[in-house]
């Protein structure tokens, strides 16, 4: 636009003026060059950022995607009433009490049948049992307790293969290294091939990864408890930090007098936003657990600590959103006779809502990924059972990732990456929600 306007009339002008304008032209060229350079830097910066992101995602996904599938060994189990309920009592309580080894016997019998093992060859049986998860018997037991009508029938049951067999099938334990260094021995490989030939071995979607709690057996381990724990914590954070943060910032921004005290508070809030989260963890340990005697490892305490870490973020975002509402809106409201409070709640706050919501959700997403403060309050723990209330012990997604990352078994390595994928999916969902809400509430003036 400017280029056309300045070059076209130049031909019609006198010499002195042409010189003057051509001088301006030279300057223009330089400025355009500078702009082009700046744009190149910008593209370069974005490209580098995308490269890192792609590298991160591809390394996590390439390591973790296998964990969403899992090796199952399906066998026909004879739910023999003489073994399960020797005294004839088929109630769930009777199944859950009594000799625990009778369920191992059921599995051994069906394994012998499936693999056509010699019933007197104990070594062969134990080698075959090595393939199945050690959690199979308890799994079978609770399955029967949940549905006692199974007793007396013959059914196909999907058992989990152990983590090592799973890693072998997926190729992360390789067959070409010497047997002494391999976790899966030659005799196991022979059995695996036999099972494959009979079609008893298959890969299925790993639902346990999402529903199970912690386990020492990688094949039985899942992020279920961590998901629920994280959910409870997010609820606590939302319930506490949204009203507190929004109310606090409305007061500070709209009602509080501007003096030294409010300046001091503002500086402190900005400082708090920059405090390392581990400090909040120590504070939480001292205040909530040692002083208020709230239970250790509870998601309530985790939520309280995370509330402290997210409050400054929410207050800063909300204040910025309120500041961005033009003063004419307030003046108009006051001008037609609304009270200060009516102006704020009827006009200013609705206009600031997109900013408030974005700030809140980004604060929550930040809290979801926060690990350090949770280590201090005992949420890096081995928790098998689902928490029913926020007072029950639970773990959180990031701490679960941390715990799995320290396990030596191969099968936990892929699960670590899978858990990271789950966490990233949650963050992505939350951030998309922030964008959608912002769009939905966006107002123009």
């Amino acid at each position: 636009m400017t280029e056309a306007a300045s070059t076209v009339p130049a031909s019609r002008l006198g010499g002195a003026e042409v010189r003057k304008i051509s001088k301006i032209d030279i300057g223009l060229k330089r400025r355009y060059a500078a702009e082009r350079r700046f744009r190149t830097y910008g593209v370069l910066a974005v490209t580098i950022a995308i490269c890192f992101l792609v590298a991160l995602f591809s390394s996590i996904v390439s390591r973790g995607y296998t964990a969403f599938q899992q090796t199952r060994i399906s066998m026909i189990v004879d739910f023999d009433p003489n073994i399960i309920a020797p005294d004839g009592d088929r109630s769930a309580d009777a199944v859950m009490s009594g000799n625990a080894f009778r369920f191992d016997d059921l599995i051994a019998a069906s394994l012998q049948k499936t693999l056509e093992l010699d019933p007197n060859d104990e070594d062969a049986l134990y080698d075959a049992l090595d393939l199945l998860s050690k959690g199979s018997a308890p799994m079978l037991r609770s399955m029967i307790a949940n549905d006692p009508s199974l007793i007396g029938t013959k059914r196909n049951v999907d058992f989990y293969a152990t983590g090592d067999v799973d890693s072998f099938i997926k190729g992360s334990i390789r067959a070409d290294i010497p047997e002494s260094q391999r976790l899966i021995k030659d005799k196991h490989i022979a059995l695996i091939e036999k099972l494959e030939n009979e079609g008893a071995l298959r890969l299925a979607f790993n639902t346990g990864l999402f529903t199970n709690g912690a386990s020492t057996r990688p094949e039985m381990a899942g992020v279920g408890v961590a998901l629920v724990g994280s959910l409870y914590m997010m609820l606590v954070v939302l319930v506490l930090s949204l009203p507190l943060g929004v109310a606090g910032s409305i007061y500070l921004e709209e009602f509080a007098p501007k003096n030294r005290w409010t300046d001091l508070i503002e500086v402190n809030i900005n400082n708090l936003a920059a405090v390392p989260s581990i400090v909040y963890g120590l504070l939480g340990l001292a205040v909530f657990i040692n002083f208020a005697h709230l239970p250790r490892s509870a998601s309530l305490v985790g939520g309280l600590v995370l509330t402290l870490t997210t409050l400054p973020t929410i207050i800063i975002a909300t204040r910025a959103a309120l500041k961005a509402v033009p003063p004419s809106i307030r003046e108009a409201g006051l001008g037609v006779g609304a009270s200060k409070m009516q102006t704020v709640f009827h006009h200013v706050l609705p206009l600031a809502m997109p900013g408030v919501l974005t700030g809140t959700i980004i604060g929550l997403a930040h809290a979801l990924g926060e690990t350090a403060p949770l280590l201090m309050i005992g949420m890096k723990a081995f928790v098998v059972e689902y928490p029913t209330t926020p007072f029950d012990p639970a773990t959180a997604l990031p701490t679960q990732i941390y715990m799995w990352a320290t396990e030596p078994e191969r099968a936990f390595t892929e699960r670590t990456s899978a858990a990271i994928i789950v966490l990233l999916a949650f963050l992505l969902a939350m951030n998309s929600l922030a964008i959608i809400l912002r769009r939905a509430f966006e107002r123009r003036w």
Partner: protein
Amino acid sequence: MKFSTAASAFVLGLCATGTAAFAAEQIHIAGSSTVLPYATIVAEAFAEANPNFKAPIVEGGGSSAGLKEFCKGVGDDTIDIADASRPIKDSELEACKAAGVTEVQEIRIGYDGIVFASDIKGPDFAFEPADWFNAIGAQVLKDGQLVDNPNAKWSDVKADFPDWEIAAYIPGEKHGTREVFELNVLLAGCKATKAYDAFIASGLAKGDAEKACYKVRKDGKAVDIDGEYNETLARIDSNKTGIGVFGLAFYENNQDKLKVATMSGIAPSVETISKGEYPVSRPLFFYVKKAHLGVVPGLKEYVEFFLADQMIGPRSPAVAKGLVPAPKDERQKVLADFQAGKTL
């Protein structure tokens, strides 16, 4: 004013019900990350075998941190069991007693072996404690004089070692394994090379001479690893001439990547450690609050379950995960002591 009074009363009430709603339903365990895998195995099996008890909550965090939590007092919001990879210190026991934890029962569950391993493709190593002291000690004896460690390569330490730059990845100072490393490797090596005598001769008291033996060179040849063994393995992966310290269980799970060295001529294995032949091993413990027995449901049963042969005996899942089992009579004595209510 009325509104704000009501509001603060409500908040206070909420806090109060929060505290009241909590009663110890489950066993809570914290402590050594070495004991953690065994404790979780037992906790899982315990919950499966006893459907009427809730599964115990097991935290890691380290022996010292666990014992500190343990010694905070008696009651619902304190932990019931502290796992430790070393015996409780007198100072910790005093702190316990001062906080009202007067009766502590000690349970010895088995042993842990520390192995020295290098990259699988490297040569075999046969170490003596003296080699390690000469390689990573801060001050060593050279021609009868105490000097700052001059050895740059393993071949400087002993002629038949390879020509590798010394890069030793040892447990960090807060690691539970550090103590047994100091005691059984550094101090033993210090005494074997006569550096200990030289420290005494230079006028140090006995305790200070031991501390001088524990000092590790700070020029980057010995690297403290405060994290897990995975980190040590990653270091060896990137530096193929590094030598790391691992737990026996970790080495056994990664035999395709690591080659283990002998110490004083003995290869580490479950057998040599439980017989006490392999020199670098240590007992593992957990500590139980006697006051919580009978109050926390399942606590007594858990301890007895832990001590069963099926859990920590020679063919148990804990042993499969790397625990070195104690001899049978020792295990029986531990159980008998627990049942008799013996306290520290």
